[in-house]
């Protein structure tokens, strides 16, 4: 078991995980209420992946995410308010309401516009990493993807180039065992669809307990260091599980109950909370204070977003071509 970090760091990580959980639960409720448009792919249960992978990135490092972006965005530092406004399609959304739930992001904190084409972000992340390298920056990119995405051609092309060009990118596969309703077992005959294929590119890989934020974080730090030093990409496969449907209104009828129970028993937030308490890093009251603060912040963000104005209609015709000068 990995040593628990300093109190400050532990509580900060906990807070971020809790924020994601509370945010996703609130969103779920808002959908349930019927006041949120479109659909949502939630990351409930995968919080340790987001926080562990991103905790030690710098603000000017980049993060590329998928159709299931909220946890990653919040962990990278996208503001709660701008996320919530985006979910409601409001003008103050992080994408001015034009992106939506599958396209959240904020470049000012290194959170790239989320990508709803499975596998689509993998070569793009390679491109960002290539640019960093050409610019002689020591920045890195963390690129998330799912188990299902490993079967896309884009995965192969990106891994091969990242390896051949020694790009500063960390490919983080959140293997939650399913792509939508389909078990990865029936679409790929490898135990670890990402990590077991890393050897095909000469990329170092790790398989990590994705529900243990400290384990994830340790692996992430190793990979970030390699990337920053110019030693190339790493594939990290995080074993995790959705505590929610694939999307709105999915009752997960395709998952065996025993499997769900086993995984539910390993809730990443409860696990980390227990360790904090067991190792007396903080008290129950301290954690409760954090939780209450987050709950309040979310409530406020929801109120704010509900009352915020929609974008002006004509704004739909803006941002189609970048009109700024060269810079």
């Amino acid at each position: 078991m990995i040593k628990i970090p300093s109190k400050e760091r532990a509580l900060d990580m906990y807070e971020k995980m809790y924020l994601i959980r509370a945010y996703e639960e609130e969103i779920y409720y808002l959908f349930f209420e019927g006041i949120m448009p479109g659909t949502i792919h939630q990351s409930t249960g995968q919080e340790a992946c987001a926080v562990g992978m991103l905790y030690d990135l710098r603000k000017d490092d980049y993060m590329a995410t998928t159709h299931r972006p909220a946890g990653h965005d919040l962990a990278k530092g996208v503001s709660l308010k701008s996320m919530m406004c985006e979910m409601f399609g409001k003008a103050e959304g992080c994408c001015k309401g034009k992106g939506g739930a599958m396209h959240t992001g904020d470049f000012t904190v290194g959170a790239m516009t989320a990508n709803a084409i499975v596998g689509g972000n993998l070569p793009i992340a390679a491109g960002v990493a290539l640019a960093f390298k050409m610019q002689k920056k020591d920045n890195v990119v963390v690129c998330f993807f799912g188990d299902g995405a490993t079967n896309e051609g884009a995965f192969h092309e990106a891994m091969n180039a990242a390896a051949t060009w020694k790009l500063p990118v960390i490919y983080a596969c959140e293997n939650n065992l399913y792509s939508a309703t389909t078990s990865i077992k029936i679409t790929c005959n490898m135990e670890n669809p990402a990590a077991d294929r890393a050897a095909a590119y000469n990329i170092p890989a790790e398989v990590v307990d994705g529900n243990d934020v400290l384990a994830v974080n340790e692996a992430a730090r190793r990979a970030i260091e390699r990337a920053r030093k110019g030693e190339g990409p790493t594939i990290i496969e995080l074993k995790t599980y959705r505590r929610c449907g694939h999307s709105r209104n999915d009752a997960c009828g395709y998952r065996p109950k025993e499997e769900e129970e086993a995984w539910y028993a390993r809730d990443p937030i409860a696990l980390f909370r227990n360790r904090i308490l067991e190792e007396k890093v903080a008290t129950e009251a301290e954690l409760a204070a954090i939780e209450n603060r987050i709950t309040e912040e979310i409530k406020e963000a929801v109120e704010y977003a509900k009352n915020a104005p929609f974008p002006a209609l004509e704004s739909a015709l803006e941002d189609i071509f970048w009109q700024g000068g060269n810079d």
Partner: protein
Amino acid sequence: MAVMSIADALKSAIAEEMRRDPTVFCIGEDEDIPGGMGGAFTVTKGLADEFGFERVINTPISEILIAGVCVGAAMVGMRPVADLQYSDFLFCMMDQLVNQAAKMCYMSGGQVKVPMVMRAPCGATNRGAQHAQSPESYFVHVPGLKVVCPSTAYDAKGLMKQAIRDDNPVIFFEHKLLYGSSRKEAGAINASSEIPDEEYIIPFGKAAIRREGKDITIVANLLMSHRAIQAAEILEKEGISCEVIDPRTLVPFDYDTVIESLRKTGKLMIIHEDHYNLGWGAQLAAYIAEHEIYLLDAPICRVAAYDTPIPFSPPLEEYVIPSTERIVKTARVLAEM
């Protein structure tokens, strides 16, 4: 006779064809996982119960593979019916559709046929730009592909059966707001029909006149054909009589029915959810301007999605895509011309 949604009508068409012809099979992501959805929109749910997983294939998330497998299997006697979840992902398999499926018969000098159906759910439903497109036009432009776009359950069934029997690759667009599946969507329209108990097939290249009229000919497909009918009802009350034509297939295209209508009305309005710039309406407009310009008593008029990616925010999405109101307003101007 039973009333069916488009989703169910499609399922029944596919099931009938699978029963009739052992070479027909279904393939796609989440195609029919027990406890799952049946594609993204329930169409293929339950088919494996009857036909088994050998004929209802759940694939990896590998669009190039899905299309390529269809091409290969079709060339040796099978009739794949593939499902793409969202038509936006057609771009992930574009090479296999444009360079392979469409060209194989021709390049081989007619040695081989490629009978395959690629089902592509289209239309905007507050999902953002990568799950919202109406990309019919890209495929209309490909010699060798047929392009189908039913707007009622009756048509969906008859056209799907034809698509499966057709000896050429068919891109089959299904509008998400018309499915009437158990997956409810804001703005969904009921496109259910009475479906005859007897088998029927709808040939390609025959438009349907949804409503007769004498002042303006409106040509509109998929969701827009329903909005055109709504608009026509409103306009009727104002004394403007619209003939609403649903082309049903874009390749082949039934120019004759449009031309016949123009002989009465002299005014042409084309409506599609696909973008304005070089949307399929451009071809129809151009064709008329080439071949029957003297039938026109007024400029041709196109109402289409503005030339932007589809925005997520509901009011913006509504604004970008032709609304019944925008159709009505445009028709009023055209009527005055």
